[in-house]
């Protein structure tokens, strides 16, 4: 079926943006094309345009695309040659690499094994072949071989290697895919895996820190190259400065390092580190004395000094280096490894070390010059592509060394029968790359040999609880920071995260502040080429660092120009330089994601082209006028322009956190103050929140933690998952039966399509007390509402059965049902059909079978010696899959397929439909959760003049301490919307105004305040107070009583301890713990404890030897070898176990017995 589908894809024009179509339609939100465009209010239209181009998971896709299109080629180039130790003539060279298409295939071909949904169902990996072009020698000839498959690469869904890229909604439907599904994850062995975004301190940058108590200043830089990762420190010790590196056994005085790097003159060192500042000179001067004391004057002496202290780790076979060579190697490649020393030019490296020393001296002089580790500008995000690239390079290197070993083995043979063809041995281990990638993604263990790095928990299973939980997972950022450490800094809200990371969405508890979420309008950069930027800098008037002498480097007004943290030159006109550079960027001449900013404290202009920076678009303001005008927005609305046109026309630009710090950004147009040099204007203030926090109506009226609580709970709400939800067979899925879009929406809700896949229902809420079963946030539910479908949900659970094949050619089978005398199926087989599988729609009760699997009785027997047995005469034993659970389920789907290893795979999906019951958990969108306390007949509930009775009654005590004013406004807006026939907006920092809503209420004959007069359903009397009454969007959360309820009288016990098992899933006991025991003792019922905890449960009769005090058996003491003195007594089994365990560790607890009476 797949080929025909693929053809269909090609036929139709690629249009994947139908979801956005209505945002661009002629009449949208009551605005027609002809309506006047108000720049101030309509500039938010840039946001859907941005999301149309970028999407919410664009960072993952961009990063993966960059990996497969650019990074792979770089890796190939870095490891292009495979040579043989035996035959010097032999070589194999990689020329090119491609994923998913051959060199001959037509452009746009996407070769993947199967459509992604089929991979999900059949437990396969959604992957594409990796092809390489190679050139190698065979005998005398050089042979080119194209399209050699070296493995399979898991493909990220919706990336440019995925068949879902650029197809429209209809074609998506044919692939059984949901058009709203954002993609950005992998399907590995049938499970959806996300590589979470990792946050790290930026690489190859100097970070200066100070410990004022210990009087230590340290500048550190983490160098990261393809080969190695290492950290170099410049630290102070007793006010002297040293260089520290892992591979050098002791700290080297900074002057010696600089001399080793070729700056032999003390004068020059002083000029490079201190400039002409006498205070810096005074601080630094001690360091010269140290070098002089050690009698290091020349470069060679310094190199020898360093070389002597290098920790040598030599690979086998490598030649032993002299001390001098060790020193050169250390300075040239080990220290600050990301700078390469070309030829003999050590100058750049020397300057880098000098810069580090200078930063240390500056911080010693003024402790405020330290860098902030938690500043978002000093962070880089590591995405799927980067992690995959690290892993792939490791596997590729392994692949090549295995290949080389293979070749050598063959070439070593003195006589070969046929001419040696290297390709014959390359295919043998081609499984390595495929398996390596699969295993890493499916287990989340990233082990990189060359960095000696082991990282666990990199990938997570994509949570499919609801659409929003999947989306929330894709925008999540996890920090490498240790959770258990008690420092507040990394967890605190950083001012610099404004607009970049969501201010509300973070979990509570141990990961609070360490797990973050991206804001709505952000982009994460990928690496950009450095070389053209460097050339451009020189053209723009930057003087090359190699032509600058040390005295002028730090002279006043001379700004250093740093490209990705490395000094490349200086400029005396930094502001001109920066302006020119920005102009080029705004005109689209260089990548819009290159950032440039001035740091006056360091007299530096920093240019960053590296990947992993968060940036966001802002409107450029010139002469106090925003560049985006009404005409531009009109073009956008007419579809003439896309978001990128705003970039290329220089109206909007991306700023990263560092450049943002160099700008003055107005929130609203009204803030454009001619007295301030405002450079940018915010596109929409509500983009400070992320996708999940964007669901909250009127969040700016809520107490901040409530928004955070809602962010956690929004991900637990049951709702619609995807358009293909009924085609999915997942381990556990929850569907809401009648989900509704909220009455009070936000712009974010529309942008992320939450209104198409909602998770909740609009409940009519009365805020009042009722029945007393509403204490502690409990809710009163209307039984009639539940009958009508309020809060009803379905739970489907997957059960997998594999039919195995055994080495002796026997295999598992499914046998049909068994019948009793009357010809009726026996009770356990009632749900089965004649094929032995559960029938669709059949009810399965506890103890019934849904797949009647049978195992051959002789499966374990050896393959040999049983040849006389005919395969037909196998005998089987039933090992059926029983259904277990308090409530019956219904068979929803049965799927039978063949998995990777040719074994039959049966998946049975069992469904339960649940109506709300006592104890089920609900929440509004304001962090106000509550369980159902009582379900009341509709006739007993209060009703208003129109006869409307509430679906939910909420206790008013929920409001004063929680201060969720947004919830009240939601109620009023919702009520006005219901009466008016409109959907109202509760967008953050905007939305429908309370005054307007009140006006509508008054017009429709209601009180402006949203309070109604209600009548008691019991007495029919009018209630004493007006009741706050109206619709509020309620979510049903996944915590349901049915999954949790548990009780046991007697049951299984653990073998070792003879104590009851633990946990609901093991039918465990309920523990009477230490504190409960204390209560009983305090009550004076200690005999009760004796009876319940020992006599009638844990009693055990032991034989104790009164002489040695140890335990024996059968009235025999093994220690004393006698029957004498052995006494029977009863002790708890736990005590006996303790004694024995103590004995096993060489502690002899001896019992001394005395008479009771």
């Amino acid at each position, binding site marked *: 079926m797949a080929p025909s589908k693929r053809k269909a894809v090609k036929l139709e024009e690629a249009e994947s943006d139908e979801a956005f179509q209505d945002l661009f339609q002629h009449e949208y939100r009551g605005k027609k094309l002809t309506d006047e465009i108000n720049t101030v209010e309509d500039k938010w239209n840039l946001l859907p345009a941005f999301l149309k181009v970028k999407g919410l998971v664009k960072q993952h896709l961009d990063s993966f695309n960059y990996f497969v299109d650019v990074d792979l080629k770089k890796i190939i180039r870095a490891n292009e040659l495979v040579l043989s130790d035996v035959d010097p003539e032999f070589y194999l060279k990689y020329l090119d690499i491609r994923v998913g298409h051959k060199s001959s295939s037509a452009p746009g071909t996407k070769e993947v094994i199967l459509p992604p949904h089929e991979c999900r169902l059949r437990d396969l990996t959604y992957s594409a072949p990796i092809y390489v072009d190679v050139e190698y020698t065979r005998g005398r000839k050089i042979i080119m071989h194209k399209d050699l498959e070296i493995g399979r690469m898991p493909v990220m869904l919706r990336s440019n290697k995925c068949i879902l890229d650029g197809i429209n909604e209809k074609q998506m439907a044919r692939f059984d895919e949901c058009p709203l599904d954002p993609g950005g994850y992998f399907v590995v062995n049938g499970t959806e895996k996300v590589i979470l975004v990792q946050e790290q301190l930026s690489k190859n940058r100097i970070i200066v820190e100070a410990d004022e108590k210990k009087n230590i200043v340290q500048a550190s830089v983490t160098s990261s190259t393809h080969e190695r990762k290492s950290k170099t420190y410049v630290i102070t010790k007793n006010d002297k400065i040293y260089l520290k590196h892992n591979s050098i056994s002791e700290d080297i005085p900074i002057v010696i390092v600089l001399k080793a790097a070729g*700056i032999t003159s003390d004068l020059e060192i002083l000029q490079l580190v201190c400039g002409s500042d006498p205070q810096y000179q005074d601080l630094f001067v001690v360091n010269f004395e140290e070098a002089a004391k050690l009698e290091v004057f020349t470069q060679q002496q310094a190199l020898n000094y360093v070389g002597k202290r290098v920790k040598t780790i030599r690979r086998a*076979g*490598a030649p032993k280096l002299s001390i001098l060579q060790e020193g050169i*190697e250390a300075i040239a490649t080990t220290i600050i490894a990301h700078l390469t020393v070309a030829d003999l030019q050590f*100058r750049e490296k020397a300057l880098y070390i000098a810069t580090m020393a200078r930063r240390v001296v500056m911080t010693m002089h003024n402790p405020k010059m330290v860098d902030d580790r938690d500043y978002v500008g000093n962070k880089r995000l590591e995405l799927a592509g980067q992690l995959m690239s690290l892993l792939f390079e490791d596997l590729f290197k392994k692949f090549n060394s295995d290949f080389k070993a293979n070749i050598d083995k063959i070439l070593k043979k003195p006589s070969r029968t046929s001419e040696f063809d290297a390709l014959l041995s390359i295919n043998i281990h081609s499984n390595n790359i495929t398996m390596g990638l699969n295993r890493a993604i499916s287990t989340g263990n990233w082990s990189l040999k060359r960095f000696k790095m082991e990282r666990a928990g990199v990938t997570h299973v994509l949570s499919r609880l609801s659409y929003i939980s999947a989306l929330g997972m894709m925008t999540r950022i996890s920090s490498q920071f240790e959770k258990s450490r008690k420092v507040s800094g990394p967890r605190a809200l950083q001012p610099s995260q404004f607009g970049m990371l969501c201010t509300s969405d973070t979990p509570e508890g141990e990961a609070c502040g360490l797990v973050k979420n991206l804001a709505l309008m952000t982009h994460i950069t990928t690496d950009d080429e450095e070389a053209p930027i460097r050339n451009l800098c020189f053209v723009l*008037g930057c003087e090359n660092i190699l032509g600058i*002498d040390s005295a002028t480097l730090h*002279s006043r007004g001379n700004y250093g120009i740093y490209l990705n943290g490395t000094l490349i030159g200086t400029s005396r006109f930094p502001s001109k330089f920066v302006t020119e550079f920005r102009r080029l960027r705004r005109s689209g001449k260089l990548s819009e994601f290159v950032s440039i900013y001035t740091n006056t404290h360091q007299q530096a202009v920093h240019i960053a082209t590296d990947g992993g920076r968060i940036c966001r678009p802002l409107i450029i303001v010139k002469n106090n006028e925003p560049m985006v005008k009404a005409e531009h927005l009109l073009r956008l609305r007419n579809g003439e322009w896309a978001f990128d046109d705003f970039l290329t026309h220089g109206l909007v630009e991306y700023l990263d956190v560092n450049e943002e710090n160099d700008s003055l950004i107005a929130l609203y147009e009204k803030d454009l103050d001619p007295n301030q040099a405002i450079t940018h204007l915010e596109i929409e203030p509500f983009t400070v929140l992320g996708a999940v926090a964007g669901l909250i109506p009127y969040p700016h009226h809520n107490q901040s933690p409530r928004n955070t609580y809602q962010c956690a709970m929004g991900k637990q709400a049951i709702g619609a998952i995807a358009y293909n939800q009924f085609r999915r067979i997942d381990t556990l899925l929850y569907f809401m039966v009648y989900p509704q879009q909220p009455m009070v929406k936000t712009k974010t809700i529309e942008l992320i399509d939450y209104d198409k896949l909602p998770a909740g229902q609009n409940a009519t809420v009365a805020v009042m007390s009722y029945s007393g079963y509403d204490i502690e946030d409990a809710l009163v539910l209307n039984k009639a509402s539940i009958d009508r479908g309020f809060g009803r949900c379905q739970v489907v659970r997957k059960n997998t059965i594999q039919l195995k094949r055994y080495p002796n050619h026997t295999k598992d089978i499914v046998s049909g049902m068994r019948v009793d005398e009357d010809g009726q199926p026996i009770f356990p087989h009632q749900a089965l059909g004649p094929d032995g599988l559960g029938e669709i729609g059949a009810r399965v009760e506890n103890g019934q079978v849904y797949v009647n699997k049978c195992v051959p009785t002789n499966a374990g027997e050896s393959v040999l010696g049983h040849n006389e047995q005919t395969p037909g005469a196998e005998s089987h034993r039933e090992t059926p899959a029983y259904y277990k659970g308090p409530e019956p389920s219904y068979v929803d789907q049965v799927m039978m397929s063949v998995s990777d290893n040719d074994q039959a795979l049966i998946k049975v999906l069992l469904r339960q439909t649940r109506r709300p019951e006592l104890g089920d958990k609900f929440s509004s969108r304001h962090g106000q959760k509550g369980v159902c306390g009582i379900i009341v007949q509709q006739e007993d509930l209060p009703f208003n003049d129109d006869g409307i009775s509430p679906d939910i009654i909420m206790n008013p005590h929920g409001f004063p301490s929680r201060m969720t004013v947004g919830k009240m406004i939601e109620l009023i807006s919702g009520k006005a919307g219901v009466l008016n026939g409109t959907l109202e907006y509760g967008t953050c920092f905007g939305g429908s105004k309370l005054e307007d809503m009140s006006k509508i209420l008054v017009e429709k004959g209601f009180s402006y305040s949203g309070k109604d007069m209600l009548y008691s359903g019991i007495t029919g009397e009018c209630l004493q107070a007006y009741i706050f009454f109206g619709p509020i969007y309620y979510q049903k959360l996944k915590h349901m009583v049915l999954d949790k309820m548990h009780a046991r009288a007697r049951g299984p016990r653990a073998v070792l301890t003879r104590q009851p098992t633990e946990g609901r899933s093991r039918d465990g006991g309920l523990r009477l713990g230490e504190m409960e025991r204390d209560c009983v003792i305090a009550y004076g019922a200690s005999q009760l404890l004796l009876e319940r905890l020992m006599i009638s449960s844990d009693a055990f009769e032991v034989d104790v030897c009164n002489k040695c005090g140890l335990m024996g058996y059968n009235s025999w003491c093994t220690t004393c070898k006698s029957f004498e003195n052995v006494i029977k007594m009863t002790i708890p089994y736990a005590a006996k176990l303790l004694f024995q365990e103590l004995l096993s560790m060489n502690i002899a607890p001896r019992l001394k017995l005395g008479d009771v009476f």
Partner: protein
Amino acid sequence: MSSEEKSNPLFVQEDDEGNNSSPEREESSTHKSINTIREEPEDANVESIEEEDDDPIINSFPIILNTVPSKSQSLHILQYPGRPKTRLLNEGAYKANIKEESNYLEVKVPLDTSKFFNVGKTEDWGEQIGEQGLHGVLNKSEGGLYVGQIINDGGHKKIVLTPVDSTAQLRASFKYIDDVDASNQAQRKAEVAESSKNSNIQILQTAAKSGNQITSTEGFGNALGESLRHIKKFEEEHWATLKWETSTSESAQEIKSSLANSADGIELTTKANLDSYINELTHY
């Protein structure tokens, strides 16, 4: 050869660059001529296109491109950091050596022993130190640097540009100290060898690891790291001697004048428009 002395006395701000009276010395050999007149900070092309409204045109000059007279010659800028401006470069006998493959230049400059010179130290070292070795790596400018001369040709001013091949910063290497160290060490080694000769050590068994255990993919022939290979290449290469000419010498003057005048006189005009120029710059 004229050297624009960029290194100033300690902590003196870089002043105006027009120190045209700086001593010039010409050095030309059969295959190489090193000549610098004045460093032009920016490519002249850039000036013409990066025009701004607040940056009006004051004057315009024709620009003429020149080359060095002979193909075997090239132009280099030599900088002497760590040498005060007041100390001129035209005294005594200068020697220059080059390792062309490694781009490494050595200039031997006579040492001024009259001031700040510790005669006692030289006696300790037992070596006659009469000259200072200045070393530096030649950094290829890759077509980005030009020497420009403003020539007043009878009222018509013109700028003659000549491409600079490379720049180099020359620094003292104190080789004599290393030599002393080396001789000391050799002596010590000899002594150790002497003393250990008498000891009665018998070698019972020796084992050598076979060389085919290199497992890394690049292991073959790449036992040394890249930088060490450069050093090795550098050490294996022989010094080629260059002839040093003072700026007052005849040949130097000749070259200097040819640089100023021998140009074909064709005025440079720009064919590229601003857009294509910028595209050229920014696209890699």
